[in-house]
């Protein structure tokens, strides 16, 4: 592996961590749960890895177990992503939607 690729990845990692720290400063208590749930749905991004893994395993032919593992990961990540965004949406509709109607 070219060390510059690794350094690039580490740079991305460190910068994103700093960005993440700065991104959220003040959150009203009402939004704690929806924010947690929305961020949780984003952490389902490992779905990208699962997609690649499931496909490579299929192509390789001789890596059945890896393929199954990646497929299970794909299903779990998809539950995380779809369920996470849907649940967050439901919560926010109840909080924010009613609020707008009340004004």
């Amino acid at each position, binding site marked *: 592996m070219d060390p510059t690729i690794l350094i690039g990845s580490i740079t*991305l990692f460190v910068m994103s961590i700093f960005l993440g720290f700065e991104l959220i400063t003040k959150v009203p208590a009402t939004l*704690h*749960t929806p924010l947690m749930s929305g961020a949780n749905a984003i952490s389902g*991004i490992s779905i990208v890895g699962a997609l690649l893994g499931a496909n490579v395993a299929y192509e390789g032919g001789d890596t059945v177990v890896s393929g199954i593992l990646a497929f299970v990961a*794909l299903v779990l990540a*998809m539950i995380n992503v779809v369920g996470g965004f849907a649940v967050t949406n439901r919560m926010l*509709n109840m909080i924010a939607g009613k609020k707008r109607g009340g004004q």
Partner: protein
Amino acid sequence: MIDDQWVGIGYLLSATLFIFGLKRLSHPRTAPRGNQLGAMGMLVAVLTTVLQMELGDGIEGWILIGSGLLLGGLIGWVMAVRVEMTGMPEMVALFNGFGGAASALVALSESWKYIEDDTLEIPTGLELEVMVVAAGLSALVGWMTLTGSLLAMLKLKGGIEIFGKWIRTPTWGPSWLNPVKGLLFISTLVLIYMSIQEPTETDYLFAIIGISCILGILLVLPIGGADMPVVVSLLNSLSGIAAAFTGFIISNSVLIVAGSLVGASGLILTFIMCKAMNRELIDVLFKAFGGSDKEQLTRTKIGSDADEVAMMVDGAQKVIIVPGYGMAVSQCQHQVKEFADLVSEKFDTEVKYAIHPVAGRMPGHMNVLLAEANVPYDQLIEMDEINPEMPEADIALIIGANDTCNPVARTDEGPLAGMPIIDADMARTVVIIKRSLSVGYAGVDNDLFYMDKTMMLFGDGKKMMNELNAAVKEL
């Protein structure tokens, strides 16, 4: 199918959408849009990935990927749509566990390729080191997130039913457990180091997975149910970190960016939540609750009835309603709203709601439920603003809340010490709807129940509110 530079641009777009999504999720007005932006980012990431892949010569590639997406999407959607508002926190914990497991499984799948297929050339040098370390760390964090989240979910539920028998989720954590956790953590790091020497040794791999699972359980086991929101938030941060480590294994930029974004912002959210509860994160995680969790109940209190309470309400100018988990369990938010409407029409009584930041099982739990019952937003007052009004209130009506208005928190004894509370005991009369005198989540007796000015309505929230409403109508 598409060129590498388009893949890079697709992932950049996706990461940008995540950043704006998270930013907007932290403001009430923009939050729904923020969630949509996040979902769009995810869609872009998935589409970019699928378009980039060589999906083989047969339809089987598409079928495999498509059925995985469909199956997971369907399960997730059904779970999200069907869950009751009271079950929301558990659901978030469960999804979070799935996310952590997915990251760990991708890492495992990558490592396993080299174990089961001899023809694949095992990488050497730096590439091997990066792969093994990232896979090890992803496994550690991912499996820990899975078992920790599952236990957190059970703790939020309060227990589990096995063969019709209700088993309460235990809380156990002597102080010697902390060094054990430390040792397990270090041994995982040693195992990862050893895996670099022998990357195809499956014993190391299984040992890392096993220890990580145990660590997740040991991390959550000593923590009481009241602190569970903080723990779920921390586990959410960890599942992001697991995704980022997985990104290192497959050199994928969007995994690294999105994962570390969630990891960092999740940690900040954890600190914000701790602050709202006046707790230190270190105390929550590593300081076991003192004392026994089964406090003996020696005092008694005579219950009142709905008619008696209705007469009290008749003379009241100001009623402050303090909802808690009991309201969520009995789903009586509509009856509560009906009560508020009744008394404000009939007796011209001012009604407000006192919202403790961690009432229920998750921050914002009460807001969600009351919003569902169409309670006007401006009547929901946060703790710090309502407390100065408490002494002017004729009645504080507590519905299924316990620890969040336990005066013992003002002293420095016991697990509740220092937690900010709703000053319900300052009101002229306190009415408490509760099924029994039993202790709350923190396992501490509540002096509020036994005060002379307190009237207890023993019973289920919905039943008692219905009786109370009927009694008010009759007056």
